[in-house]
């Protein structure tokens, strides 16, 4: 067993929270540049250029790309040959979030209950933590801050198996059309198909972590990603919803085996500030 002190987890999470919020991933930057080249709407083009300039300012001055520095969503891949010492793992992650959001001057956007007093917790905890146990003696940590505006436009539908591919397409495209300008387009569309209700939502979120330009390894799913991206960009919503060809930068789909009676479809919408950073301990 390899021993890892949870203090190292705390320090890693702190750095990841800050770096994720200050720096736009290279694949997102490339996709925005390509979109700016292609965009036919003059206003849309200007908006895409401004978004790229914003990323440059944020990186250079080491400030957040967006004031909504999100709930801290943490994906943890825990090697089964790791023994964690020095304290409670989840408390260590929350301590990392607390330090990252405080020391990085990030906005604290977490309220302690969803519908009663909604009091700000003051340190952006608790993190939303998803843990997977994997072979090996390493710990992989991905921090993906998630803003509220795009999360609010996400949707989940318990479709019937007979709805088929056309039903999936309609659900995804309708969700994006209804979202319109609200989730800060251009967006990235994470789609989870299959599993149970919570699995569909979780794999939709995981789909957002995939590098832009990479497709699902299943050719039929990859083809659906292309079809959906084309259809979404025909909607004309455009950058910031003001009209244009660039409504989405990518559609990433993940699938999971499902019950014979079910075909859940989750759509998790991500704004153009598609932030995630990872580290392996």
């Amino acid at each position, binding site marked *: 067993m390899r021993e890892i002190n949870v203090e190292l987890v705390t320090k890693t999470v702190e750095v990841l929270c800050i770096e994720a919020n200050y720096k736009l991933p290279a694949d997102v930057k490339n996709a925005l540049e390509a979109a700016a080249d292609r965009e*036919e709407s003059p206003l849309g083009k200007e908006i895409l250029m401004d*978004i790229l300039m*914003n990323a440059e300012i*944020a990186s250079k001055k080491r400030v957040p790309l967006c004031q909504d520095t999100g709930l801290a969503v943490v994906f943890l891949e825990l090697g089964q040959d790791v023994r964690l010492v020095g304290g409670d793992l989840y408390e260590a992650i929350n301590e990392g979030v607390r330090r990252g959001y405080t020391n990085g001057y*990030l*906005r604290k956007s977490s309220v302690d209950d969803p519908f009663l007093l909604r009091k700000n917790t003051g340190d952006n905890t608790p993190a939303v933590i998803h843990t997977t146990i994997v072979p090996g003696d390493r710990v992989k940590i991905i921090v993906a801050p998630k803003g509220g*505006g795009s999360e609010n436009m996400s949707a989940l539908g318990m479709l019937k198996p007979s709805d088929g591919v056309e039903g999936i397409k309609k659900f995804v495209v309708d969700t994006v059309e209804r979202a319109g300008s609200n989730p800060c387009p251009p967006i990235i569309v994470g789609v989870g198909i299959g599993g149970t209700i919570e699995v569909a939502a979780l794999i939709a979120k995981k789909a957002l972590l995939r590098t832009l330009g990479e497709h699902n390894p299943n050719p039929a799913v990859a083809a659906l990603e292309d079809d959906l991206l084309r259809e979404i960009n025909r909607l*004309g919503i455009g950058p*910031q919803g003001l*009209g244009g060809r660039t409504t989405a930068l990518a559609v990433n789909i993940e699938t999971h085996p499902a019950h014979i009676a079910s075909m859940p479809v989750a759509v998790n919408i991500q704004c153009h500030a598609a932030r995630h950073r990872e580290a392996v301990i």
Partner: protein
Amino acid sequence: MTKKVNTPLSDETVENLEAGDRVLISGIIYTGRDAAHKRLAGMMERGEELPVDLKGQVIYYVGPCPAKPGQVIGSAGPTTSGRMDSFTPQLLDRGLKGMIGKGTRSKEVINSIVKNKAVYFAAIGGAGALLAETIKEAELVAFDDLGPEAVYRLRVEDFPAIVIIDCHGNNLYETGPKNFKLSGEEKQP
């Protein structure tokens, strides 16, 4: 075209703005989002005096990041305006002239914008670092306990925005995408 706009807004300034105009706003604007709107609505209901005289003023829907040492304010881009819709008509009736946010507004808000000769601007969502550069002063006005949702008085210089809904009710969120929507067999040019 880009127009220079100074706050507080006069009727004449508002009449001169058309949906689709790019503007650079200079002067004083006030921050306010979900929790602050809820409090303002409660104060109005109880007949209490508001912490800000709204006549001619502009509210910016924003919950900024904390300022780093040496900064006036942290990143400060717009939040989704629709969440403020149920509070907005009564603020417009009190003299509020402009709002800066992002995303669509309800029919009631649009009607109230026309009735009160006001204007709705959008700033680029997710461009918080760029927009913060145009904020030159920030002073806490009310609701300190709300943290990022407190009300601040900001002095901005050439804050970039786009006129979305003008005082005639024209709405760029309606007209803009229509020009680019492809239907049926229509091929992307």
